């Protein structure tokens, strides 16, 4: 081996720090390597070759220590993907040898991870086709010889389904994701190997999962496309605090429930499926509804719905201030079927109360006069400047033009013939009929009102009864 340059030595030292699959270290090693090969001259190329050499040697040396070897292989992968020129071509001549050496010596778990890695190389065209083909053939051979099941693609999907990996991992192992990763996504791009290395443990757990067939179909039909777009989202995410970006297994999980009947059956067969947390369902209740009401904690999908909700709250609060609340009567069956009362419209509780108050007032004091009656038909009094409000209730009079008398009159009012009540209201003052206690009303007056009331008015009975009693 040729004596190492200073840079390569340093790099070797740095690389020896990598004892396991660790994203930050891999990231920094990648950046370091990128930095070294930045300039476009021969010197840089030589250094790149040196560094490649350091890495390759390390993989082979540590082939027995699968954790280190795999991590180092991930460094190789990360550098090759993120800094293709010149590294991809520098690695290319030896990568097959390195890969196969490690593959031959390592354990089953690592092999699976490596197969995944190989998959990404194929889809992303990291290395020349011939090189990959060579690796693939050997892997297949050894795979068939020593490792019978499970067929890699299925395993791969399972992993996606069952363990929602944390967001950055998104790109990992997702074949189609790669082309997008260029410099500015370097950061995201690097973790690629991580997932594969970090998660293979889940495998056993997955194989039990059902619907493999369907899952495969889904995967293949969706292809990388959906993931690619997801990746875009994730790439953008870190800048806004999107604390829970769409999870990678979204597509598969969504598919989960497409056939409701089927999924219920699935739950029955497989309790695991039923007790598995599906992040997209949680998100649908929380983060997918971005417009949040600060007061009630309710969330909405759109600004309009939030505004509507705020209006409703506002109206509700105002009503609360305006008086005591009480329970209204339930609607009739007909109204219920129509069911048009939506939030933001009427609150029957309050309206019933208002109506009740009004009725109560009427019940308590005078008699009820239909609102729709012509004021001309009812007793009225000449309007005078000196009194504008009812002497009893303090309500303002309704002034109207009396056709018969050709004068301005106060409607539904009478001049008191004697003093009434404890308020010491004197005779001669004007009062609203509705404000006069029933027992104080003169029979003629009641008669007159009864005549004016339409036949079908609900209050007619009451008025007539009053008049009868008065007559007696």
């Amino acid at each position, binding site marked *: 081996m040729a004596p190492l340059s200073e840079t390569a030595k340093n790099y070797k030292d740095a690389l020896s720090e990598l004892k396991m699959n660790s994203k930050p270290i891999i990231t920094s090693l990648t950046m370091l390597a990128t930095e070294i090969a930045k300039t476009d001259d021969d010197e840089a190329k030589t250094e790149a070759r040196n560094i490649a050499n350091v890495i390759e040697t390390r993989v082979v040396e540590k082939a027995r220590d699968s954790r280190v070897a795999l991590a180092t292989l991930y460094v190789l992968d990360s550098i090759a993907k993120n800094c293709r020129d010149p590294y991809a071509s520098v690695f290319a001549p030896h990568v097959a040898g390195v890969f196969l050496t490690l593959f031959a010596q390592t354990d089953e778990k690592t092999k699976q991870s490596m197969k995944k890695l190989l998959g990404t190389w194929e889809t992303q065209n990291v290395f020349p086709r011939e090189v990959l083909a060579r690796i693939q053939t050997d892997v297949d051979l050894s795979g068939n010889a020593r490792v019978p099941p499970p067929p890699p693609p299925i395993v791969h999907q399972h992993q996606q389904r069952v363990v929602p990996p944390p967001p950055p991992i998104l790109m990992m192992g997702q074949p189609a994701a790669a082309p997008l990763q260029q410099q500015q996504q370097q950061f995201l791009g690097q973790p690629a190997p991580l997932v594969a290395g970090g998660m293979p443990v889940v495998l056993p757990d997955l194989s039990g999962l059902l619907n493999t067939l369907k899952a495969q179909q889904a995967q293949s039909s969706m292809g990388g496309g959906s993931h690619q777009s997801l990746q875009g989202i994730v790439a953008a995410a870190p800048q806004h605090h999107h604390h829970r970006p769409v999870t990678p297994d979204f597509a598969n999980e969504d598919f989960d*429930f*497409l056939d*409701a*009947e089927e*999924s*219920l*059956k699935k*739950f*029955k067969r497989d309790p695991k*499926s*039923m*007790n*598995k*947390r*599906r992040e997209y*369902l*949680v998100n*649908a*209740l*929380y983060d997918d*509804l971005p417009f*949040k*009401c*600060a*007061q*009630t*904690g*309710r*969330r909405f999908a759109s600004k309009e719905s939030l505004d509507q*909700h705020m209006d409703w*709250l506002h109206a509700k*609060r105002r009503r*609360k201030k305006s008086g*005591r*609340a*009480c*329970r*209204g*009567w*339930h*609607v*009739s*069956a007909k109204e*219920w*079927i*129509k*069911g048009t*009362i*939506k*939030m933001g419209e009427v*609150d*029957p509780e309050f309206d*019933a*109360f208002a*109506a*009740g*108050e009004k*009725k*109560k007032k009427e*019940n308590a004091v005078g008699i009820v006069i239909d609102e729709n009656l012509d004021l001309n038909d009812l007793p009225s009094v000449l309007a005078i400047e000196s009194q504008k409000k009812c002497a009893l209730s303090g309500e303002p009079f309704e002034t109207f033009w009396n056709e018969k008398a050709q004068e301005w009159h106060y409607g539904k009012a009478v001049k008191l013939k004697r003093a009434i009540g404890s308020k010491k209201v004197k005779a001669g003052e004007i009062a609203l009929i509705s404000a006069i206690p029933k027992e104080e009303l003169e029979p003629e007056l009641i008669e007159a009102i009864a005549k004016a009331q339409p036949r079908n008015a609900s209050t007619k009975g009451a008025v007539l009864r009053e008049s009868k009693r008065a007559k007696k």
Partner: protein
Amino acid sequence: MGGEENKSDSENEGGGRKKKKVLTTRFDLPKESELRVECKLNRFFHVAVVPNSGTCEIFGSEIGSSSSSALSSSGGVSSSVGGTNTTKKKLGGGKWAFFTYSGCTIELEETNQTNATNANSKIHLTTKKTSGEGAGGEDFGDDTGTRNEDSDDDLEKSGDEEDKDKEEEQAIEIAYVSEETPMVSYLNVHGVLEAKRKKARDCSSALVSSDDAVNEMEKEEEEEDTKKKRKRGEIVEGEEQQEEKENDGVRQKSSAGPRVLIVGPADVGKSSLSKILINYAARQAWSPLFIDLDLGQNAISVPGTISAAPIDHPINPFEDGAHVKSEMPLSYFFGDVTVTENSKEHYKFLVEKIAEMMEARNSKNEHARHSGCIVNTMGWIEGLGLELILHAVKSLEIDTVLCLGQERLFQTLSKQFAKDAALAQQQQQKNKKNKKKTSSSDDDGKKVDAAVEILSLKKSGGVVERTTEFRRKTRDDRFREYFYGFDFVSNPLSPVAQSAFFSSVSFYKVGGGAKAPTSALPIGQEASTDPMRVASVIPSMSLVNAIVAVSHGKTQSDLLTSNVAGFIHIVEVDMHAKRFTYLSPNPGQLPNTNLIVGNVKWFPEN
């Protein structure tokens, strides 16, 4: 379990006169865990989610973690204890579970009056006359429920003195964090229901758009076709109609949302699960129909009724208490909290009535149809109870049954549904054959029912068995809540006492009269009292304390089929003056003079 408590006592000058001790406890909840709190009845505590610590929900309804004070004016008391500026929201007595998907920090705060005449109980003693002093401090476990439900009034009073002492101590009996909850599985069930709703919506919108166009064309073609055929005498009238009917049925069915019925023995969290599912749906902008068939603990209306309410926004526990406050409840008064062999026909009739109303609503309201319904049932699962469940499944056309907490019931129902499905299939085949053979097969235009899907779910570890006594008390609370509201101390509703002459109203009873069992009669003779007969009731002193339903029915014959407008509580009967005094929920006149009397009574404690 991961919950760290720092208790901090602080003295507060409450109202200037009395010293209140405020006790704040903080809990850190890990992911997917819940804080369970049991608070004494008629006592209150406050809760707040520490801002930015995560999200949290009560029975599927999210608690906001804002520092705004808007809610404090209506429901809670805002305070800044323990250095956080959060609004504490007020909750009443009962059992509560605060669940978090993300993990969060929750603060509980209880105010312990050190003075014997505490402000709260004073209010309800003097002005409300419904103080819960008795109900307040009762320990759940102190009564084994062997006593007869309605006859234990005096016994209960003797216990009051001791209880008072207890009450002074703590409102919260226990609060702990549990990491084992079935919430994720409930969420997954919601996910399935959600998929069904979406499917229903997509289905019907697709149908609407394609149908119109296609139908037009097809109709023309078909018409020509049939004309030709008819000429040749090839087509039979009956067949044609039948086909159309079936098509309609299938279409309706495919665009209908999930209809879920929750069954299980008592105390497994049925109503909690139904609330969770309802709230989740409402949070995603659906408006499912919540149907509660539980007579004893009806979450929508008072005990003794079965009810249905469309829910278009999540139930806010801070304003509505533990129950469902609906702006549009549809309630039918059964008049008792249990069903007997004698009255089962009446109960079934009311369930069918609700089914009918749901159909009517669904046919007018697309959104409602897609949203589906969630049905809660009684905790009675044997014998007649099971019969009633099966009847409800059939009449409400339930497609999914969720069985909580009992494997045996699950097996029983599974078998039953499988049998039904097989039968239905046979029937169908028979029908088809018949159709071919005979021309007039108009006897059965029923929809092709898919088998009812049944799923067994785990109950939450937080559910506690309730004693008969506790149930009775919560029933009393329901009546009080109806008239005074759940937060009867700081934000009460105002019912009004009114009086009326017997002559101004009519009292009726459904299925009244002697209850002679069929076995006691000569063979072949039916019981002389029809369980569905509406009979008038002569006012008597026995009406005192009765909860009486104000019917919407205008005539005697309408009463059975009419929903109720509300309830009044008869406070006093004066046989001499032929008058009675009653508590009405609001100051208005009674909306109807037809009143239905049942066996439901309420003895307000004072």
